[in-house]
């Protein structure tokens, strides 16, 4: 049993994170080489259904550790449990999906077990019993191969949308091993939550519509008289433009993104930023509106499957990366595209 492969099932307050099943795909690929089936590791309180879901998605069996202390995710007690289980099982590999939680969790477990943690895996290949991971560095400007040869388990976080997400098979069943989590009281206390800014999550999105500095570039729009400050007028114009982007996104079930220039200019909050100092995304379709394509932005979205660029400047670097380009005013093209796509998608 020395070569057991584990997948960690991430959840937000008991709600499954679908990228966990993508991590399961990577774990099964590795498991095939190591002649090991994959065990799902599920931790929380009242999360047995996630262990069942993991088996339905392709895990052979599951280890479930529940405790009221584990109701809220806190990295320290979760890491205590994960480290303990992996140590007892003599785990060879642990694969996790990538979220803010799992990155922190994997970091702590790496320290506990004195082993290497590789983040943002986009491909895996085997070299004997070692998993050689390909991951982007410099926000995707380069690809690095990384490997943990001696220490076990090998811990890797896979980037969302880099591996297939399997369909569940309700007919599958497997053993769920329930155990007691030995826990020390955590030092931190979760006081509460505030809801997200809304809309589709950028890193998860299959389609993203993004706006840049060019979104404010419309002199035909007259701001209300009470806005006299030039900067505020610019932001007001940008907000009208982002409303058009939001409508296109809504028609496509897409997430809304933005370039750093648009965020820095105060058009939209930072949570929207795509790029080297924002979110790195990899959707099926990325529609860039009024984004010229600074290298930092391109680094954050270059792995998108299909890129559409709409820009007034035919020389904008974004067109070099785009599959389809429109030289034109986004204020004209975006609303027209929204209606055209609604029609074709039968909405």
């Amino acid at each position, binding site marked *: 049993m020395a070569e057991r492969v584990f997948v960690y099932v991430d959840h937000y307050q008991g709600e499954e994170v679908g990228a966990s099943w993508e991590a399961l795909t990577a774990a099964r690929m590795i498991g095939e080489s190591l002649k090991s089936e994959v065990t799902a590791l599920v931790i929380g309180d009242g999360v047995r259904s996630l262990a069942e879901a993991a088996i339905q998605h392709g895990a052979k069996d599951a280890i479930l550790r529940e405790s009221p202390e584990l109701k809220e995710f806190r990295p320290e007690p979760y890491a205590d449990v994960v480290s303990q289980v992996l140590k007892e099982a003599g785990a060879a590999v642990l694969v996790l999906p990538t979220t803010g939680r799992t990155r*922190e969790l994997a970091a702590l477990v790496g320290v506990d077990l004195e082993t290497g943690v590789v983040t943002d895996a986009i491909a895996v290949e085997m070299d004997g019993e070692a998993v050689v991971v390909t991951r982007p560095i*410099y926000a995707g400007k380069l690809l690095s*191969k990384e490997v943990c040869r001696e220490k076990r388990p090998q811990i890797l976080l896979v980037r969302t949308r880099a591996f297939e997400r399997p369909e569940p098979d309700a007919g599958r069943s497997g053993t769920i091993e329930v155990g007691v989590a030995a826990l020390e009281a955590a030092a931190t206390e*979760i006081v*509460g939550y505030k809801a997200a800014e809304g809309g589709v999550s950028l890193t998860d999105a299959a389609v993203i519509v993004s706006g840049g500095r060019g979104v404010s570039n419309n002199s035909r729009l007259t701001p209300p008289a009470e806005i006299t400050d030039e900067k505020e007028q610019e932001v007001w114009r940008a907000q009208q433009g982002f409303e058009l982007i939001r409508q296109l996104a809504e028609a496509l079930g897409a997430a809304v993104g933005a370039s750093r220039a648009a965020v820095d200019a105060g058009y939209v909050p930072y949570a929207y930023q795509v790029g080297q100092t924002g979110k790195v995304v990899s959707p099926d379709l990325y529609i860039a509106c009024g984004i010229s394509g600074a290298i930092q932005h391109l680094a954050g979205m270059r792995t998108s499957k299909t890129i559409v660029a709409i820009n007034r400047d035919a020389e904008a670097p974004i067109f070099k990366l785009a599959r389809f380009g429109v030289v034109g005013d986004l204020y004209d093209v975006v609303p027209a595209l929204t209606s055209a796509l609604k029609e074709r998608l039968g909405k």
Partner: protein
Amino acid sequence: MNIVVCVKQTPDTAAAVAVENGKVTWGDAPLVLNPWDEFAVEQALRTKEAHGGTVTAISLGPDGAREALKQALAMGCDSAVLLQDTAFDGADTLVVAKALASAICKMESVDLVFFGRTSVDSDTGLTPAQAARYLTWPSLTLVAAVLGLDPSAKTIEVERMLEEGRQIVRSPLPAVVSVVKEIGEPRYPSFMGIRKASKAEIPTWSAADIGLTGPTAALTWPAVEAPPKVESRCEMITGDTPEAIAAALADRLVEEKVL
């Protein structure tokens, strides 16, 4: 408050990085203080301004890392330390986190350690949490706002930015905090600050100085390469009216099964 801020030197984000003879190069592009760390320095300085104390910047790296430390000093940090040793060659996040934690232990009675959320070069985002684990202090990552800090009760309350929303966490001090951009715009160094930084003596601590004997990395990097070149194959969509352009584009997206 004894405050520490951990920083790294990285190539500028506008740099065109490439691979030459298996090594990463960035041409003439300047090396800068990792952009995320600027926010950490800013928050460290604001904490000092509100509660008193000192801010020490630490970096692990080659001689060039002194420049990142000087930038932190110019912004207003009180002192800086460079961790440098051949034992750190080929360091992974485990080695870096262990060295930073050991240096922080050596400083004694540190209350709060700030990090940027990640570095723009290797971009793992692991080091803050790993340093916290070595220190056995709470790890508070992805912090967008410090809601409260009570130096006498030794508690901190922060707002963390998760994918699903904001989480508010209360923690005892000492603690390790990694910050995101929303924490607030970093200040520019003042003229006086730049002068002070240019004259500053930055001590170097070796692995032995911080009580480490040959920490070994778990990870190796067998190869680094440029991503496959994307041939420019942009198909320009044209038309007489925005509606005609939109219709043609929509048709192509459907034909190519993008939608």
